């Protein structure tokens, strides 16, 4: 018997149907992943199951049977028992899901009481220990702000477990977390699921997480499921054109030097009417019939269903149109950008007189070297200081020590004509009150706006519009055009694709490689996304707590990592083949205000020895380019 049976579930917001006829089953102990890009309706589906839809939305039809009981018609009072009791839910943002003025223990105790369990302190501590919170007895008395993001997510999971749920719904549970923490939380979820025989409904946009966690997968597009398959079959041979393109759009080492496959356009806006297939406007395999008739469900293999007119998936692998851009014009070896011993400290002020009592050593002696026309990736987890490095090089932040030299000449302060920055959040990087034309011409009023827009793949007539009319990917293109207007030889890209969907990320990555080939740009690419590094970068520098711990060419660092942190970082990245590597680090990164003595990594390092606690390791060279800061690098 299935634990959960969803049939023809539809959600309406006004006349629009953000979820339209979704149907799937979930057996006890099984993990079903709903995969989709932003706006596909996957989160709304989960909220509809729990009957927690926002005020504007309502369930427009369909049925949700949970353990034989119809949830859609259950009175609200009974539903409250199901919610948080037999069905638990965890959300993306652990920070906003916990009440900041109650201790963790009190919140879990409350969840226990609501569901009729004993709310004794032992039970609370037991739950906290079960989700892997060290020193649970003490942590139970702490407030959410005293916990790191990963710890908060664990506490959320403990709360969801309080009702002994048979089904746990996890909505992007690790998207706000760093990869090493993400790996820990995913493992925790898996272990808990095994121990308790819970079913897990996992909602995510990340194919890697799906590969690691799911038993079965449902791909959603524009409010509908388009493909449902067991994991092995799905990863071996995705059938729906959309799924196939999602895979092909992922950057990785194999795609290096080639253009990525992109899905043209973007997700259709809410309220679009679809006479035929919903994907037709972006589908490379579209046929005339696709425009007229909604595709039927077909089951080419047992348990593998796909909603497409295509009889059989084309055998040929997808490849992107257009040749790979030529390797480098003017790519040299002479350093264009040279950073020496860069330090950026932020004072910590306390008391009435605001005296400086200490420093946050956001960047603590970083050396970088970047040649013209090359790409250097600066990799690290959040809070390691990588963005601060970028801003200090650009001159937006005054360095505390060390210096930057550009083309051999030392540089102080801003140098607009030499380097520009592309920021992470496309929604905050454009002034909403200015037209696109004015934004692009911001740094150079004489710039040829039309040519710049065309250079980044937009049309010239978009200059008269305002940013809010554009999608995230288009905004990022505008931001790139704005930076290019002053013709800088160097672009600092701060996580330029991490706020974008996979298909759009591929477009931007293609654009960046094209621009590099055409204009000979050098990129300092700041990111936490290893796959992007593998696809794009020439050299890599790995940063931990304000310092570079390993540097080298992409092949050296990613194929043959020597530093324990790099190894753990790479191992933590979820892989498409679902294989999991053992090297994992425990705990959270320490605060840069109070770095551990000796090697910064030693509290988490599996190889740490006594020596590591007292002295910081010098950098050891393994080749002309490969250097590692570790006593025991092998």
């Amino acid at each position, binding site marked *: 018997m299935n634990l959960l049976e969803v049939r023809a579930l539809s959600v309406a917001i006004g006349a629009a149907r953000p979820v339209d006829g979704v149907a799937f089953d979930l057996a006890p102990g099984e993990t079903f992943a709903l995969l989709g890009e932003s706006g596909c309706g996957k989160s709304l589906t989960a909220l509809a199951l729990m009957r927690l839809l926002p005020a504007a939305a309502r369930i427009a039809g369909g049925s949700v049977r949970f353990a034989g009981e119809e949830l859609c018609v259950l009175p609200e009072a009974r539903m409250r028992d199901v919610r948080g009791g037999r069905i638990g839910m965890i959300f993306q943002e652990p920070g906003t899901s916990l009440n900041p003025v109650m201790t963790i223990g009190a919140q879990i105790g409350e969840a226990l009481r609501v569901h009729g369990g004993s709310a004794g302190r032992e039970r609370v501590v037991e739950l906290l220990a079960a989700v892997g919170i060290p020193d649970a007895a003490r942590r139970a008395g702490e407030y959410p702000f005293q916990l790191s993001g990963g710890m908060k997510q664990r506490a959320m999971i403990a709360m969801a477990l309080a009702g002994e749920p048979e089904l746990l719904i996890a909505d992007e549970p690790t998207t706000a977390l760093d990869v090493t923490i993400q790996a820990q939380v995913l493992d925790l979820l898996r272990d808990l699921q095994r121990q308790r025989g819970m079913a897990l409904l996992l909602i995510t946009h990340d194919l890697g997480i799906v590969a690691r966690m799911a038993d079965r997968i449902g791909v959603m597009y524009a409010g509908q499921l388009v493909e449902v398959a067991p994991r092995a079959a799905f990863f071996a041979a995705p059938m729906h054109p959309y799924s196939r393109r999602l895979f092909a759009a992922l950057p990785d080492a194999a795609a290096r030097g080639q253009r990525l496959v992109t899905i043209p356009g973007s997700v259709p806006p809410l309220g679009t009417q679809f006479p035929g297939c919903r994907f037709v406007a972006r589908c490379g395999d579209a046929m005339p019939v696709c425009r007229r008739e909604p595709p039927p469900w077909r089951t080419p293999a047992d348990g593998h269903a796909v909603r497409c007119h295509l009889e059989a998936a084309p055998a040929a692998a997808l490849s992107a149109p257009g040749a790979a851009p030529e390797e480098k014009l003017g790519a040299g070896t002479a350093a264009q950008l040279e950073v020496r011993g860069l330090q950026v400290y932020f004072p910590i002020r306390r008391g009435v007189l605001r005296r400086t009592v200490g420093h946050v050593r956001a960047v603590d002696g970083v050396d970088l070297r970047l040649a013209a026309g090359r790409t250097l990736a600066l990799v690290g987890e959040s809070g390691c200081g990588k963005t601060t490095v970028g*801003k200090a090089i*650009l*001159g*937006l932040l005054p360095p505390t020590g060390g210096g930057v030299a550009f083309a051999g000449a030392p540089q102080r302060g*801003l140098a*607009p004509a030499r380097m*520009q*920055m592309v*920021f*992470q*959040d496309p929604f*905050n*990087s*454009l*002034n*909403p*009150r*200015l037209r696109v034309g004015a*934004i692009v011409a*911001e*740094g*150079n009023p004489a710039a040829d706006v039309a040519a710049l827009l065309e250079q980044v793949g937009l049309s010239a007539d978009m200059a008269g519009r*305002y940013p*809010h009319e554009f999608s995230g990917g288009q905004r990022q293109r505008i*931001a790139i055009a*704005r*930076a290019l207007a*002053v013709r800088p030889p160097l672009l600092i890209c701060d996580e330029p694709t991490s706020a974008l969907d996979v298909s759009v990320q591929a477009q931007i990555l293609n654009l960046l490689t094209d621009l590099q080939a055409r204009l000979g740009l050098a990129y300092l690419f700041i990111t936490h996304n290893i796959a992007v590094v593998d696809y794009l970068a020439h050299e890599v520098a790995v940063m931990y707590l304000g310092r570079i711990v390993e540097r080298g060419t992409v092949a050296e660092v990613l194929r043959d990592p020597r530093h324990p942190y790099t190894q753990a970082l790479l191992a933590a990245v979820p892989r498409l083949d679902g294989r999991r590597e053992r090297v994992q680090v425990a705990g959270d990164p320490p605060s840069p205000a109070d770095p551990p003595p000796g090697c910064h990594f030693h509290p988490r390092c599996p190889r740490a020895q006594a020596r590591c606690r007292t002295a910081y390791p010098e950098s050891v060279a393994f080749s002309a380019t490969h250097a590692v800061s570790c006593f025991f690098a092998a």
Partner: protein
Amino acid sequence: MMFKPVLLWSDALFFLLLAAALGGVAWAARVEHLRVAWRRVGQSRTGMAAATLLLAFVAVGLLDSLHYRERLPGEKEAYAVEVRSALDALLSGLRTRTEKTYSAPLATHSFAKETLDAEGGGRDFPRLKYGGAHLGDDLAGQGADLLVRTVQGLGIGMVAWLALWLASAPLRRAAPGLAWNAALVTLLALCLVAGPVAALAQGYHVLGTDKVGQDVLYLTLKSIRTGLLIGTLTTLIMLPAAVFLGLLAGYAGGWLDDVIQYVYTTLNSIPGVLLIAAAVLMMQVMIDTHPDWFATSAERADARLLALCAILGITSWTGLCRLLRGETLKLRELEYVQAARALGVSDLRILSRHILPNVMHIVMIAIVMDFSGLVLAEAVLSYVGIGVDPNTISFGTMINTARMELAREPMVWWSLAAAFVFMFALVLAANLFADVVRDAFDPRAAR
């Protein structure tokens, strides 16, 4: 020339403000996000109704700001010392038909008994000089007369409304989609109230008379200008300081921020009423010691009014300044500001292009929200005697005199009631409008 126009300082500022508002409208029509936001105001029924009511108030205030001095009869070119306004001229009937003392609304007899020196002698309620004078001795006909006048007034109101309806047709055609119906309904209600009042006012004191026999309706209409001036000029005075200092503190940071914060925290911690009382008394002394500065008593009262605006402004800029500082602090870290800095854009240009337009909605909301608070503040301050000049007609001074009237036996209630109803309508309209504006300009509002 039959008269000499007089431009009081407050008139000049009021006109300036109106011109600025019109200019602002023209500007907003060209800037998309402002146009969209104001459109949302226009699409709200509450917004249009409140705006119509506010416009009616502004129209009265405007008429009352066209000041002049009448030419005295005689060969020599000489002008009366009294400064009058267009409103006074319109309402000259109301202004000149003063009774001896209190009379109730629509009364024909005085409110207080008096010793009659006519043949009968004794004490009785004397007949009013103007109230219902046209009735002669036929007092029984008063009810019928009131009815006839009311009906006539309703008719006139209806006709006036129809005329306005026709006149506004091009406007409605120019901007379809706005909640014109709400505006028209409000207008109809206004006309249907104003018509009968106007008709009745020809022969009666619709809202009674005060202690010295002045028509209360006249007083309330005159109070509107004072209220509007206090509500708008104060904001005008404090706005530049609040915006400039708020942006500066937020953007520059460092010691500038510390100094500005220190100033407004200090100002904020002094009780506002004390500060205002001290400043008003000082101002009063100064005005009294320099009678030669002012040609007419109107100018003197005007100076005091402006001084009050200035003082209120000085004590009220801190709230907006603090808000703007916080918002600027947030915007300064936003990526488009960082991008502009990286492009080498100057600080001044960043402030004017990137920060100011993005805090404009806060300024907008602050202006409309402060308005009603200031109107009420004037009433309170005048009530305790540190507001406008006692000769200036305002809601506050009316309420101040009502203090004694309420203690009388029987009670004289109409001055207070009239002031209350008018002030309530003004403040309610302003508050409703402010709410709509806040919703429309809230960046989180749905697009």
